[in-house]
């Protein structure tokens, strides 16, 4: 057993190996890390680049700022430098790194200086580190340089040390993902020396700050940060190495931090602190916020702050989660246990004295119950809870003026009513009327109104009903007491009532949102067609978010706008690029994101269980989505993605079914053709061999009959082959009907003669009106049509005679062939002119070729005629096929008139 154990442990951790394999597909990122500008990062990078070049490596300078210094410029000589892209920014032409040129050039290694740079103007990404990530994703090795002060998690520390705010920040994840970090170190004293000699380039704007920044103390502190950071990385790498090689390591049980934040200004600090703590402990960290289920709605500004903090946490490499629950402490501890958190990080503010007594703080409550979990408290650096009142005011619900007005009105009404009632009866508890006013205000206008109503009520009650009436003075001490009790009761009741109102409002809003979502999903479930799904989705999104919306689906390897609201929405080049990005990278792009933020739209991938099925875009404008809008949108997008996916699948199934149907049809076609050819051939072969081998032994009449059958079957074959040829001609569109004068009666009679020869047992009757006008057409084709119809009538006509009629109806000649057989089922009537349609068994045994009617139709239409089938024809049986041709004389007459 112990042996087994060791076996398991010494096997390399599969996750670690997987991570290693994935690294193989990306380019390698090497970061030259320095404590401050001027330590020689660019110099170090270029020196290494030259060495690589001399060794024959494929290295290209993507961008290096020499700042006009000859030492650095000299190093560039002999190296391939990519031309820069010109960018217009605020009327000035700037030169930016050309990402697309770099991707097109595809060197093994590219050197791009200044990782923290912010791109100007129209660039794909706002930040250079995003350009670099794209290069690395494309499999290109990148060397870049970074000063420690630009690291996101250290920015507050750096600001504290140096007293200078850091504007350009790089998320820690970028550095964490770097394959190599090279520390470029220079002792602070030497750096200051270089600065004095003017060897350190600083932008003009920074010159003034430089004196404050480049102090020995600052530089030493920054150097320490850089050294520590690098040391941490080395430590991580060693742990990774140990894991990959399954070396029994000294690493302890994994620490896991749970970081609690809320919609306040302290949370950002909590996150930064937790990030440092996590990297120090080498721990995973999960950032969580708890939102009240009863929807004590936070203001939009607070929610945006929370969103910001979450974004920061994600950038710093945290996992994030938002949970909903009423009992904060319970939810946090539940999550902590589920996630096996070993430490909780939470911010705390020192409340002012009275509140501190009243409330047990959240950390205290947590500490009381969190057995076995360490709790870190992050305190606010500023004065203890300086401005709760101001915060309160800032979160006053909008329209509070209206609330106060309602409160005043309610109090006035209560006063008037009280005075009125007093005329008739003596009321002991007039204060109840005022309580009613407070409750009414609370219910209709919220908490502020309730407080206002309580205060106004106290004044009005005092003024109008408490002796001495008409003054604000109170004679009796017990009345003073009563007033205070009333005030307290009113405020409490008002608070409760307004809370009920808020909850009702939240519930209504949620119900409305749920209803909308329900309606939407019902609408979606009713449609299997992708187009309908998309339209339903964009209109729903427009109705929910009140923003322009667009949906794009993949087509031929690109994404194409399929539906939008308003319907005439058009996407520009940048928008399309952002949409493509969202589709390919499966991440949000466009406005408000890190990729192509110049597009007015924000695009998000539509993810179904089968992967990304499309892209959704909406007009972001100036205000980002609020949290409840985000939720509604997420729900709609989920449903849309599934519906689109379903529509796609059902279309695929339909296509497959159609293909299968096509294959089946083809098989039936081949089988029927082969049957039609084989039966006469079998008869002929059989009859011929019988005659040859057994003829002598046969009676005379049998031999005759065999010969006759050979003749008949040969005729049948000939007709079938002719039919096939005719059909081919019709299909190929090469039927050239002549435009001769045709005497219908002549053609009918000769066709009937021919039929009588072929089908000797059958009675054919003709009835052609005597002075039938001529038609324009082709007598050979018409003869063939009539013969085909007679052939059919013979086949299906039972034992009854077949009749042919010809007459004039207004400007048309009507010809019809009628049999009295079983007729055609109503459902089949529409299909009788289809190619290879035949009644009876699918293999069409002995039911004809299935070509006759379809050929007839082709010929008739080639002569500008129409053909139609009716059944039953007469006496509830039989089939009549009738054709109509324009009478030639009438046409001529009309021409002469016109």
């Amino acid at each position: 057993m112990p042996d087994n154990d060791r076996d398991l442990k010494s096997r390399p951790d599969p996750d670690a190996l997987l991570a290693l394999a994935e690294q193989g597909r990306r380019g390698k990122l090497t970061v030259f890390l320095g404590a401050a500008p001027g330590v020689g990062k660019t110099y170090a990078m270029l020196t290494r680049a030259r060495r690589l070049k001399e060794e024959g490596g494929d290295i290209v300078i993507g961008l290096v700022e020499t700042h006009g210094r000859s030492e650095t410029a000299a190093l560039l000589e002999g190296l391939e430098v990519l031309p820069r892209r010109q960018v217009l920014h605020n009327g000035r032409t700037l030169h930016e790194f050309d990402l697309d040129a770099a991707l097109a050039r595809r060197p093994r290694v590219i050197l791009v200086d200044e990782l923290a740079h912010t791109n100007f103007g129209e660039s794909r990404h706002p930040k250079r580190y995003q350009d670099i990530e794209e290069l690395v994703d494309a499999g290109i090795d990148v060397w870049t340089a970074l000063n420690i002060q630009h690291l996101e998690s250290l920015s507050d520390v750096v600001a504290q040390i140096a007293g200078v705010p850091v504007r350009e920040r790089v998320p820690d994840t970028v550095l964490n993902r770097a394959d190599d970090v090279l520390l470029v170190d220079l002792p602070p004293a030497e750096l200051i020396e270089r600065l004095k000699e003017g060897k350190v380039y600083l932008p003009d704007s920074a010159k003034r700050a430089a004196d404050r920044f480049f102090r020995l103390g600052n530089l030493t502190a920054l150097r320490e940060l850089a050294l520590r950071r690098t040391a941490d990385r080395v430590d991580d790498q060693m742990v990774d190495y140990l894991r990959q090689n399954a070396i029994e390591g000294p690493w302890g049980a994994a620490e896991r931090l749970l970081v609690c934040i809320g919609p306040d200004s302290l949370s950002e600090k909590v996150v930064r602190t937790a990030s440092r703590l996590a990297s120090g402990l080498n721990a995973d960290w999960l950032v969580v916020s708890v939102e009240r289920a009863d929807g004590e709605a936070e203001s939009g500004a607070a929610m945006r702050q929370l969103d910001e903090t979450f974004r920061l946490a994600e950038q710093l490499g945290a996992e994030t989660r938002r949970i909903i629950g009423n009992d904060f402490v319970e939810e946090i501890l539940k999550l902590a246990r589920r996630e096996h958190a070993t430490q909780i990080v939470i911010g705390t503010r020192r409340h002012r004295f009275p509140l501190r007594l009243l409330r047990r703080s959240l950390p205290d409550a947590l500490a009381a119950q969190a057995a076995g979990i360490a709790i870190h408290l992050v305190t606010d650096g500023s004065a203890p809870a300086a401005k709760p009142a101001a915060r309160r005011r800032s979160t006053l619900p909008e329209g509070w003026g209206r609330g106060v007005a309602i409160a005043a009105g309610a109090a006035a009404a209560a006063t008037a009513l009280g005075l009125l009632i007093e005329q008739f009866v003596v009321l002991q508890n007039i204060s109840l009327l005022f309580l009613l006013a407070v409750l009414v205000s609370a219910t209709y206008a919220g908490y502020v109104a309730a407080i206002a109503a309580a205060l106004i009520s106290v004044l009005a009650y005092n003024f109008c009903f408490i002796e001495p009436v008409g003054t604000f003075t109170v004679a009796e001490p017990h009345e003073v007491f009563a007033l205070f009790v009333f005030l307290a009761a009113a405020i409490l009741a008002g608070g409760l009532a307004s809370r009920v109102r808020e909850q009702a409002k939240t519930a209504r809003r949620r119900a409305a949102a749920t209803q909308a979502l329900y309606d939407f999903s019902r609408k979606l479930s009713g449609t299997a067609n992708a187009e309908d799904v998309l339209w339903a989705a964009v209109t729903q999104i427009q109705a929910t978010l009140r923003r322009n919306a667009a949906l794009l689906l993949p087509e031929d390897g690109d994404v194409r706008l399929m539906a939008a609201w308003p319907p005439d929405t058009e996407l520009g080049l940048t928008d399309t690029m952002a949409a493509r990005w969202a589709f390919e990278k499966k991440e949000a792009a466009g406005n408000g994101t890190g990729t192509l933020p110049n597009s007015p739209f924000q695009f998000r991938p539509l993810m179904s269980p089968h992967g990304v099925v499309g892209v959704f875009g909406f007009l972001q404008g100036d205000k980002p989505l609020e949290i409840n809008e985000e939720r509604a949108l997420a729900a709609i997008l989920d449903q849309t993605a599934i519906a689109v996916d379903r529509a796609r699948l059902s279309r695929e199934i339909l296509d497959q079914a159609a293909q299968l149907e096509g294959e089946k049809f083809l098989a039936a076609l081949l089988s029927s053709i082969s049957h039609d050819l084989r039966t006469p051939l079998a008869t002929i072969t059989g009859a011929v061999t019988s005659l040859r081998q057994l003829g002598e032994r046969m009676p005379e009449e049998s031999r005759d009959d065999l010969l006759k059958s050979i003749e008949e079957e040969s005729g049948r074959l000939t007709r079938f082959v002719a039919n096939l040829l005719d059909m081919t001609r019709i299909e190929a569109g090469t039927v050239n009907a002549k435009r001769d004068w045709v005497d219908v009666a002549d053609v009918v009679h000769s066709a009937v003669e021919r039929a009588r020869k072929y089908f000797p047992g059958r009675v054919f009757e003709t009835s052609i009106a005597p002075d039938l006008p001529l038609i324009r057409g082709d007598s050979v084709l018409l003869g063939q049509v009539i013969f085909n119809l007679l052939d059919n009538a013979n086949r299906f006509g039972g034992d009854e005679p077949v009749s042919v009629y010809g007459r004039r109806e207004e400007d048309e000649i009507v010809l019809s062939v009628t049999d009295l057989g079983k007729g055609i089922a109503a459902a089949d009537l529409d299909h009788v002119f289809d190619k290879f349609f035949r009644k009876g068994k699918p293999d069409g045994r002995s039911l004809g070729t299935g070509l006759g009617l379809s050929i007839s139709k082709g010929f008739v239409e080639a002569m500008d005629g129409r053909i139609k089938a009716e059944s039953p024809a007469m006496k509830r049986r039989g089939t009549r096929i009738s054709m109509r041709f324009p009478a030639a004389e009438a046409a001529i007459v009309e021409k002469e008139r016109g």
Partner: protein
Amino acid sequence: MSAERILVVDDEPQIQRFLRPALLAAGYEVMEAANGAQALKAAVTAAPDIVILDLGLPDMDGKDVVANIRAWSQVPIIILSARDRESEKIAALDLGADDYIEKPFGIGELTARIRAALRHRIQMAGSQAQLTADGLSIDMVKRVVTRDGAALRLTPKEYDLLVMLAHHAGRVVTHRTLLTSVWGAAHGEDLHYLRVFIGQLRAKIERDPGNPKIVRTEPGVGYRFVGDED
């Protein structure tokens, strides 16, 4: 011996039209049926000596006719079939039909098949102990196979295979029938066994194994033993 009675089941009047005089001239008595129901009725009431059956019938599947007849009778059944209905043909053979012939066919081939089937019926009555084909002689009592007088050494499986084919001399035996009777019911689909053993068998019994005369291949269907009498 009175003339053998042949029941011809085909719904194409043209086919009946030439089969009837031809078979009459060849010395058989002919009964006709144009659909499955008539065929079954005639098979019961008229006790034909052999049935010629077209698989495509207007009222029922020809395979069902085979199964139905086989349920109570061993009368030889020859299938008339078309090349595009191969799977049906094999199914009918597996259901107990004795042989098949593809349309179009010459009357000579049909009468030869009829003779082989009828002979088999007689053999079944008094099983044949000795069989010869192209210089090959099989003595089923002594279990000895000789070629031009010289004894051949066959493995037990090769011998079983040869005897199975020889029992149905002149008629096709489907792959499935061979596999299940020689290797067992579980091996009905193991065509590769058959390919290998037929190859081995031919190498031993045929004069020219590349151009076999005794064990003929019926492509896609099975094998046929051609004896001297066929």
